[in-house]
């Protein structure tokens, strides 16, 4: 029997998802035993033409990480979609947009201006910016088009399943791969992780008080964090209440609050909206009936960069998806 063919591909990502595959350690040998890896740019020397030469649907599963922000990425994922039976969005960036998705607070012009002109360590007196076509003598150099808006994988192609996380932890990856190999998959479109909130599985939840009330909002670098106490109780914003569990509480165990890389649970459309709704309702505001709108505003203004905080991993998958840009900003 021939082994099922598997492809890995990366888009706008940091490479952490590739590391996560390697982090399977000896388990990766089981994977390699069971499947044939036919495409993996970071580790193996197969080319686009090799994929093009395949029959449609010949690849059993493609694991695609990274958000989509260039023409080339769109072309590659569309090609992989055609050639694959299953497409798995692997990691936060392809699932929700991830950190690269925060670029949706800007657009191509403002990003290029900043990156190629304004940054203090950049010397670019002629103000040269990347072009899709550049003529040098009789040769033409080309670059893929860079878009204004970063997209999640499922905004570009049809996605069958999602493996969440930044980066996905080894047990979630192995459970996902095992489910695929054994054909024990849930209904299409499912996120291959538990459908519980992080607070449900948080090691600190046993000791947390019945009613949490955040009197003052602090940021993690401003206080010495108690490694036992619930972050919210300490006045630190933690997105645990609005975020899916399954990550192994890696951040919590490293004494850092949740920032939402697993995305929301199944029924939630907009992760950030749920996060802000949850956090703001546990603010310990006393005698609220006596407070004016301005007083409440002052208390809420303690939350720095709320859009960046609540949409840290999910901006492109949110309802609004990006900032509205206006000329002269």
């Amino acid at each position, binding site marked *: 029997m021939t082994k099922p063919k598997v492809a890995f591909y990366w888009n706008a990502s940091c490479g952490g998802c590739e590391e996560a595959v390697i982090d399977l350690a000896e388990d990766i040998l089981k994977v390699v035993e069971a499947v044939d890896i036919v495409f993996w740019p970071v580790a193996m020397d197969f080319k686009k033409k090799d994929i093009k030469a395949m029959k449609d649907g010949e690849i059993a599963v493609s694991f695609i990480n990274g958000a989509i922000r260039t*023409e080339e990425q*769109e072309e590659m994922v569309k090609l992989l979609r055609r050639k694959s039976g299953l497409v798995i969005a692997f990691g936060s960036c392809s699932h929700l947009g991830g950190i690269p998705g925060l670029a949706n*607070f800007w*657009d*191509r*012009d403002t990003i290029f201006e900043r990156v190629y002109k304004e940054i203090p360590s950049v010397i670019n007196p002629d103000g040269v910016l990347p072009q899709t076509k550049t003529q040098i003598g009789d040769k033409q150099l080309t670059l893929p*088009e*860079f*878009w*204004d*808006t970063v997209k999640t994988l499922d905004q570009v192609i049809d996605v069958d399943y999602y493996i969440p996380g930044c980066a996905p932890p080894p047990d979630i990856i192995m459970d996902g791969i095992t489910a695929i190999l054994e054909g024990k998959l849930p209904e299409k479109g499912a996120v291959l992780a538990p459908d519980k909130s992080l607070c449900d599985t948080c090691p600190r939840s046993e000791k947390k008080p019945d009613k949490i009330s955040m009197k003052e909002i602090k940021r993690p670098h401003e206080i010495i964090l108690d490694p036992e106490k619930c972050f919210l109780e300490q006045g630190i914003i933690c997105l645990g209440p609005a975020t899916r569990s399954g990550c192994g509480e890696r951040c919590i165990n490293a004494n850092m609050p949740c920032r939402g890389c697993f995305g929301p649970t199944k029924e*939630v*459309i*907009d992760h*950030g*909206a*749920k996060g*802000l*709704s949850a956090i*703001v*309702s546990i*603010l310990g*505001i006393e005698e*609220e*009936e006596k407070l004016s*709108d301005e007083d*409440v*505003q002052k208390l*809420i*203004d303690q*939350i720095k*960069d*709320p*859009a*960046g905080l*609540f949409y840290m991993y999910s901006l492109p998958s*949110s*309802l*609004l*998806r*990006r*900032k*509205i*840009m*206006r*000329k002269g900003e």
Partner: protein
Amino acid sequence: MKAKVDFEPKIVVFCCKWCSYTAADLAGTSRMEMLPNFTIIRTMCSGRIDPEFILNAFVKGADGVLITGCHPGDCHYVNGNYKARRRIILLQSVLKQFGFENGRLRYEWISAAEGKKFVDSVNEFIGNIKKLGPLCDVSKYLSEKKTNNVKSSITQ
């Protein structure tokens, strides 16, 4: 572009069953005249209004969203209106970061007896949104793919 005077905004008004919805009803039965640009969505309490509802309204074409609830101390569920106020104030800051002009999302306390205040608040809100002009068509720029096309539609 068409002059802004011709612009008829689409407004979503969220009303609490116990106070502002009754106020809207009172305005109707009292035959008070008001601008017709709005649609009411009734909830049991302004505290039920999930920020997701508000964002959804904007994504589906609302130019402005007005949240109305009971006066401080009057909430049928003790403190739902305070929760609503907090969420809206925070959401206003978030919307600003998303490039929304101030004033597209507002809230107002209106009791069941204040039919007149309901009319005035809604009229004033519609007037302000008319001055602001239409909200950039969120759905339009999302369907565009290439940079060049996207640019023209997301830049106002």
